[in-house]
């Protein structure tokens, strides 16, 4: 078997709050293979978001090691981590995190701006991805002119545009209604079917079941790692009927 896309060993993260040391994550070791669809679950403060930030190279571990695609990223410089995020990772956040003063198209172009892609190709690829997520008609709209679901699709298009092998989604349905959430999960499943690895953080069990595997965190530790027995496949949801 090829080396896993993600491998972490004894991963931990402490924060200092004044004089107190808070352990947000401790002793996590696991692997995620390319093509997997992993849901990360747990209550608030369980360490699931910390785990997500660490494997997303947005934060640095205080203990343990992390290999992304076989590369030890634990000791990389901030700029090297930026390069990794740019080329290997796509992010989707709960609150969309789009630039408010940029159009949908400009938001999707942003990662390519930092990848040094020439303008003509930037436009072409951004259009392509917006069409892929079904927003071909709304490229010139600003985020405030789009619904929550549409904004999240722009975010997904932005995450996809540098063709990363993996997308990390942190509570992507947290600000969406049930129907829009289901549409987004259908999009994620379609992306996963096309070979993109997905890591999804959620506290809703119904959303987690769209994945293939569920990691459960509690008090900074991974307490369970199970395949999804009763997986929901897009289009078969009981509540999906209009």
């Amino acid at each position, binding site marked *: 078997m090829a080396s896993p896309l993600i491998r972490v060993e004894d991963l931990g993260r402490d924060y200092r709050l004044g004089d107190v040391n808070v352990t947000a994550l401790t002793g996590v070791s696991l692997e995620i293979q390319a093509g997997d669809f992993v849901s990360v679950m747990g209550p608030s403060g369980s360490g699931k978001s910390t785990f997500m*930030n660490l494997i*997303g190279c*947005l*934060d640095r571990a205080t203990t343990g090691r992390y290999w992304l695609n076989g590369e030890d990223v634990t000791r990389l410089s*901030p*700029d090297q981590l*930026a*390069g990794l*995020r*740019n*080329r290997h990772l796509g*992010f989707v*956040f709960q609150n969309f*995190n*789009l*630039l408010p*003063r*940029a159009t949908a198209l400009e938001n999707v172009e*942003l*990662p390519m*701006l*930092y*990848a*040094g892609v020439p303008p003509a190709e930037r436009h072409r690829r951004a259009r392509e991805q917006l069409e892929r997520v079904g927003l071909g008609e709304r490229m010139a709209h600003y985020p405030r002119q789009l619904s929550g679901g549409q904004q999240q699709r722009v975010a997904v298009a*932005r995450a996809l545009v*540098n063709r990363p092998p993996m997308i990390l989604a942190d509570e992507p349905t947290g600000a969406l209604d049930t129907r829009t959430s289901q549409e987004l999960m259908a999009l994620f499943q379609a992306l996963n079917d096309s070979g993109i690895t997905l890591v999804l953080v959620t506290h809703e069990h119904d959303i987690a079941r769209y994945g293939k595997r569920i990691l459960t965190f509690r008090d900074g530790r991974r307490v369970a790692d199970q395949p999804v027995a009763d997986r929901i496949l897009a289009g078969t949801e009981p509540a999906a009927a209009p």
Partner: protein
Amino acid sequence: MNTLDTLHSALGSLRANKLRSALTALGIIIGVAAVITMLAVGEGARERVSEQLKSLGSNLMLVLPGTITSSGVRLGSGSRNTLTQNDAAAIQEEVAGVLAAAPALRGSGQLVAGNLNWASQIYGITPEYMIARDWRILRGRGLDENDLRTAAKVALVGQTVADMLYGGSDPTGQTLRVKHVPFTIVGLLASKGQSFGGQDLDDVVLIPISTARGRILGQAQGRLQTVGQISVKMRDGADMQQAEEQVSALLRQRHRIQPGQDSDFFIRNLSEVVEAEQAASRTLSGLLAAVASVSLLVGGIGIMNIMLVSVTERTREIGIRLAVGARQRDILIQFLAEAVILSLFGALAGIALGVGGAHLLGHLADWNIIVQPLSIGLSVFFAAGIGIFFGWYPARKAARMSPMDALRYE
């Protein structure tokens, strides 16, 4: 991120907060305008002073005879007749940049015209003296080589002498007795006013040096042809210091003075006065510019202040950019570009305001105003420098944010 993208992004951010950007730039606008206006006023003042000094004879030096030392008592300048007309001719020929080297005899005496009399300064001169001392003829003619050769009894009179003896009527053609010798007045001199020391420069009578040498100033010294002073006028732009050294070296050689011995003559010039005046006006311009620079500095601090606010406000945007792959340098350059664009925009508007303001001020206050291209170039340079200097800290603060903390910022 390439330059065009950076520029586009920076302009977009500045446009999003138009009023704030304009107010921030206003600090720089006022600063640059103040610097340009003050430098223009200072430079105008300096040139006016310099012109006035030039008309007073700034590139003139005076060679005076040396002193007699008798039993340790030095009798002062002029007590020995060491200078000759040949010395003047040699200076004229051998020192580079000399416009005129004019020998003169000087004395005073009683003037009589009709039933009026008046004591005045009497100068025995050559035609070069008119050039060296900037004398112009208001009426009549000047002295010429013929007057000199024949020791003609002709005289030029100053305005004061004319007023005192002829009551303001045209003195040319009239007879003037100088120390009882009758002269014909051939010309009236244009008025020069007072000297630095308050001396009336128009209270003079000029006669040919050859005429003066005989009876009038009583210095018949045979063939030596001694003179009381030599006025040396240099061409514009000549180095007075260097000219003085050359004149000194030439005369020492002519007078056979051994190295280490004192010279038997003195050299005086006005360039020290000129330098003092110019230094004073330079100090004035410097002071004005320094005061104006303070407002530029305040403008720079305004930029820093607003950039810090902007960085804090846009923490989440920074987080987003970092998350999708912006390097620290990308963020640094983005914010620096905004600061520099703000200050350059301020500089351009400030130049327009400063040049306009300087001319308006010159018009209203009737001041001499000179806007130097250099001051405009300097303003742009300094404004860019201020943008970088005061934008650096906020930009670095932005660039060093942790992506996770920035994304979480509310």
